[in-house]
């Protein structure tokens, strides 16, 4: 059953990503970082810090934020916005958890 324009791609079980951590998903156009918080919330952002393109997937996840490993910009996982005085936004993508598995909306992340 195709759910409208959405194409939920199964990324695997939630345990594949450590709590307070991230893993990457590579698509032809971009790399996406999928984050898991301490309490099992999942978020997906383009794996590029809006500052100098640092790989956000390598940052320290705290609360609903991640600290970019290059220059410590703090990026909000929910919308990808830089917090504090910094300005910029990493693109975010729809992701969901269902029956313990993570799904990324490839209709948005990697359109055909």
């Amino acid at each position, binding site marked *: 059953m195709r759910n409208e324009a959405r194409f939920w791609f199964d990324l*695997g079980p939630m345990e594949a*990503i450590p709590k307070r951590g991230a893993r990457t998903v590579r698509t032809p156009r971009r790399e996406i970082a*999928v984050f898991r918080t301490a*309490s099992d919330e999942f978020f997906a952002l383009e794996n590029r810090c809006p500052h100098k393109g640092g790989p956000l997937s*390598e*940052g320290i*996840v705290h*609360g609903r*934020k991640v600290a970019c490993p*290059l220059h410590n910009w703090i990026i909000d996982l929910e919308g990808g916005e830089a917090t504090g005085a910094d300005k910029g936004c990493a693109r975010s993508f729809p992701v969901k958890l269902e029956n313990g598995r993570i799904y990324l909306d490839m209709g948005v992340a990697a359109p055909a």
Partner: protein
Amino acid sequence: MRKKLVVIGNGMAAGRVLDELFRKSPGGFEVTVFGAEPRVNYNRIMLSPVLAGEKTFADIVIHDEAWYAANDVRLRRGETIVAIDRVNRLVRTAAGAVEPYDKLIVATGSMPIIIPVPGAGLPGVVTFRDLDDVDAMLAAAAGGGRAVVIGGGLLGLEAAAGLAAKGMSVSVVHLMPTLMERQLDPNAGYLLRCAIEGRGIEVVTSANTKSIVGDERVSGVLLDDGRILPADLVVMAVGIRPNTTLAKNSGLDARRGVVVDDFMRTSDPDIYAVGECVEHRGACYGLVAPLYDMARVLAGQLAGEEGAGYAGSITSTKLKVTGIDLFSAGDFSEGDENDEVVLRDPARQIYKRVVLRDNKVVGAVLYGDTADGAWYFDMLKKGLDVGPMRDTLIFGQSYQGGSPLDPTAAVAALPDDAEICGCNGVCKGTIVQAITGGGLTSIDEVRAKTKASASCGQCTSKVETLLAATLGDKYVAGDRRPMCKCVDLTHEEVRQQIKAKELKSLPAVMQELAWKTSCGCPSCRPALNYYLLCAWPYDYRDDYQSRFVNERVHANIQKDGTFSVVPRMWGGLTTPDELRAIADVADRFRIPTVKVTGGQRIDLLGVKKEDLPAVWAQLNAAGLVSGFAYAKGLRTVKTCVGSDWCRFGTQDAMGLGVKLERLLCGSWTPAKVKLAVSGCPRNCAEVTVKDVGVICVDSGYDIHVAGAAGLHVRATDVLGHVATEEAALEHVAAVIQMYREEAAYLDRLYKWVEKTGLERVRAAIMDDHANRKALYDRFVISQRVARRDPWAERAAGRDAREFAPLAVLMPVAAE
């Protein structure tokens, strides 16, 4: 003729449907209830107090015999329905009896999950679901002995507490690292564990049950790690699963549970389902509140009312163990510090956390004081704007209203006999007298004079406020800097408390030292991880998610997201074979830049993350190991050639350098540590700008400390002189251990020496021989677990997922 309503199941959901139905439409149906259990409807969630001996069965009966008679309900207890004939609209019992229906309610509830391990069927293994289970447990408990409860959730803990109250010696085995992880955050989980252990119950977390052992009946539980927990009784309380067998066999649509719409209708228009057996909008519920919501909707349907359907439930949880107060509701997942309010009172074992989004309560976790649980839950369900009371929200309902107090005014308003320092029992009056009478102006003076805030330090900010209130403008706040915005204590104070209170985990530190955030920040988490690792090298498990990327992946991240790889060259020495191996790696992995570093070794720059394990494996094969060039730890020991070759050399500088590097390698330190050894005072190895160094002279070895040559340039101080190479090794390791144990995270060694004083370090290392020996011994002990090659471990497959993408999506070639 009245319509026939048949109910399969006599649990709490079914009972509530009938209660509501009889109120809305008295006498509307002729009702028959089939219950598999041979008894009337009782309150299943109160089985724990029955087990604990606090209540009897009579206390928890919901509908007694008289109720069934008064409402003209035929209760067919002990009769199990085995089939639904949907064509002829009748149900069939196990004994073969049939009963016709016009409307049917499936309320078959749920089944306890039995984990499929060998021995699960042995006598003495029970679940915790109905009164028969409780009777079985009580019978076992009567003989004393040992019980193992598998499952550290709500049900498991209630069972464990009940069995312990009955005199059994109880262990709880839980798969996850913290108890009740689905209802509690790790902080509340920590407090809960303390309380459960306080009752003499052993808690074993991160433990997977491999099998249940015993010949004729259970004798123990075997864990994955090989441990056997002896047991006369094993309680499986790992969860429940909707009981859908009958519905599925009857062809009703069922997935995890029996699928119902918002009006509790199944795929058959004459059949409804309610309670724990249903799946509504993808969700199954195991708590009582949602069952009651469903029951109300279903009763309305049966009574022919038009009303809003069931829209799903937000649930809250309370643990029913006497003396442990715990509440959780809604979404208490990690928020950032702007979106949550946290209150911790370590002395009273209280933790409260209210999570806000857009000024609305979306979740709450309360431990120790749950009086306001219902209030928060109510605001959560109503979606009230709590912005105006945000400042006092965490104190609870009774603190609302009135204008907020300025903290200085609040302290000034305290009576003289108000206790400020709980550890040393110091009252406000005593402190004020000491300030005015003794002319005190600083927090340190107040500490020295009155002992206030001299122990755990948590009242420090209160004492400072008191100083400000007493002295007015004359008070100049000291340069005492809290570790980060998550806590009021300094780095040094946190380190002292970790040792003094024997805190051995991140949640333990955060609770006992009153952290103001639920899971820290990128500044305090790496610091705490280091402090715990240093304090408890054998007990603490390194938290990789609290480490900066370089230390997590054992390589240095570069500006383009690639990494650099630096193998050790002990003392700056290498061999043709090593150089060939490095050259081969650089060729094979197309490494773009190969550079000689300032620390006398070779840096391979531009390595892709997924190539790291293969690069390491190839370097390992040539005997090269991680150089820790990425670590807050020992980096390099730079040497000159010394007496081996140099005509001025006085001692074997290369040999000592190699020995030092082998002794110190792998240790984690507050900041990076660089060493050097020079063979004569000409100092070609530039010892005088290193953290620690040795300059060889004719008569022995001068030990240097506290140099720097980065952002800050500082020449070393000479700590002292020793005669032998062996003594030099011991002195250097002792200095590094003292630095490891005392310094604030990210303070380089020179900074620590400047803060603590060179004389103090000299006295501790050069003069106090017993102390130096003890420092050296502690260093050697901690090195036993630290001195491993992280590259070899990862080349062999450890943390493999760290180095591979979760998924790779490439376009499929067009046909």
